[in-house]
């Protein structure tokens, strides 16, 4: 599905991502973990086209997307959520999700139609599956943090992605909200046979749903494999898990 080969990114002499090789197969659920500043967000931004790698190659569905602009990568079937909640705060919940349907199905260049009438059924169905049906007409910027995260997930899903990148999907959530979100993600990934790649601080979350874990440390990939293998890995225990336990 996604194949990253030898990708590096340097900012003013500081190497944020250092020759990382990584791949994820269709339908897999993988997590990228690592301490703060390990380069997780930079790694995501390289994949989604927000940053251009200095060297290396990125393939999405066997097509080279290295250095392609984000909107094009998105249209090729990649969705993403952002670490800090990233929605359209002055639009209603309904309009947030509907806008994603409009743009992703390339109806945005229509100057003359009525946007209100487009994708109503699709939007309502998606909101219902996210448990947001009763909040459809609320201004999204006024919602709780947890609800905003759900709206953002709705925006990402409206783009009908084959692979979804989630940057800390449970950041700032209570334990209950976290559990609920994880269950929601698992269900949606199964329903849509999504490939899921996420970063996460909460190890419980990571080990509960990831089938594969990659560990970044100071920009370098120090381990990659099944949760069990990563847990056993001596390097990982030393630099990362060791710090926490």
């Amino acid at each position, binding site marked *: 599905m996604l194949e990253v080969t030898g990708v590096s990114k340097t900012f003013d002499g500081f190497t944020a991502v250092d020759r990382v090789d990584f791949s994820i197969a269709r339908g897999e659920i993988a997590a990228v973990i690592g301490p703060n500043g390990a380069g997780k967000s930079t790694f995501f931004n390289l994949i*989604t086209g927000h940053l251009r790698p200095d060297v290396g190659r990125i393939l999405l569905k066997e097509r080279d997307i290295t250095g392609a*602009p984000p*909107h094009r990568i998105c249209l090729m079937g990649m969705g993403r959520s952002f670490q800090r909640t990233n*929605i359209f705060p002055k*639009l209603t919940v309904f309009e947030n999700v509907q806008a*994603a349907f409009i*743009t992703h199905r390339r109806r*945005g260049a229509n100057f003359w139609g009525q946007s209100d009438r487009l994708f109503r059924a699709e939007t309502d169905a998606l909101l219902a599956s996210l448990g947001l049906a009763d909040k459809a007409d609320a201004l999204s910027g006024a919602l709780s943090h947890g609800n905003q995260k759900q709206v953002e997930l709705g*925006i990402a899903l409206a783009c009908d992605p084959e692979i979804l990148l989630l940057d800390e999907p449970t950041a700032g959530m209570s334990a209950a909200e976290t559990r609920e979100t994880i269950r929601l993600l698992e269900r949606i990934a199964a329903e849509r046979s999504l490939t899921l790649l996420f970063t996460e601080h909460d190890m419980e979350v990571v080990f509960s749903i990831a089938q594969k874990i990659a560990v970044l440390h100071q920009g370098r990939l120090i381990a990659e494999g099944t949760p069990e293998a990563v847990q056993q890995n001596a390097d990982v225990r030393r630099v990362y898990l060791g710090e926490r336990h």
Partner: protein
Amino acid sequence: MRRIPWTVVVFAALLVVPFVGSRFYTFVATDIVIVSLFAMSLNLLLGYTGLVSFGHAAYFGIGAYTCALLMKSANAPFLPSLLAAGLMAGAFALLFGFFCVRLTRIYFAMLTLALAQIVWAICFKWNDVTGGEQGLPNVPYPEMAWMGSAPVLGNFRVGDHFYLTTLIVVALCFAGLRRIVDSPFGRVLTVIRDNPERAQFIGVNVRAYQLAAFVVAGFFAGISGGLFGIFNRGVFPDFAFWTKSAEPLIMTILGGMGSFWGPAVGAAAFIVLNQQITSFTEYWPLTMGTVLIVLLFVFPGGIVGTLTGIVVRLRARPPPSATSEPVGEAGMVKPNA
């Protein structure tokens, strides 16, 4: 409580101005109608796309010169000249916008300003075509003889005829703007305004859409400039000067950029204030500035934003048994959606 079709009411009220008012009222009304279009065109960028242009007068000026040159020097008829004014302004907006949308925020604003000043300088210096500093005086009125022979309108002056023509042209432009704002394209613009980074990752080519908005805004500014040149009976380099770019900005903020009609209300308030104050005192710029500052503090969401806020609060007060119709329909309570 049924919704009052305010658009129709206001249009009808404006239609009867020449019947009930004096020549002076028609004059002020023409000014307001034309400048409203200028301000509304800017709000497509400011309120809907989140782009602050400090150089919108460039397209107003280009439209004014194009229309005036065609009608005066080439004896072209009115409507094709006016359409050409819009298209020429839109073409320049495409050229300039191509560079401007590569920059963000204050850099975008500065580049629009710089390019507008270049347009002004060219109008100022290119004597052979633009008449330089002297401008183009005596722009003819359009051919409106059919109105002179029409039953009721026959008694009116040519200024009244031009006012009615202007009113219809601008009303059509407003209908077009409304349609664009409510279209899927308009929705994408609000998405970009709210969050350009996120917009990219729902598949929006942000720059392309910003450029398209810039061109549409330039087109309508050009139409408004073309009308203003005729109304003013002359076109001068000042039409493209940076102070002219500030006017629609002030009007839009005064009227409220969060609503579709805000800029038009702001334009009316601005022009009426200006008229009143200039007849009062020779220190009108100082007085005008002071009044504007006070108004901006009194109406933080603009005149329209504040008034709709009051209406919402008044309607919220009675118990739910009173018909509680959603007020936000015309994009009034919530920001442009």
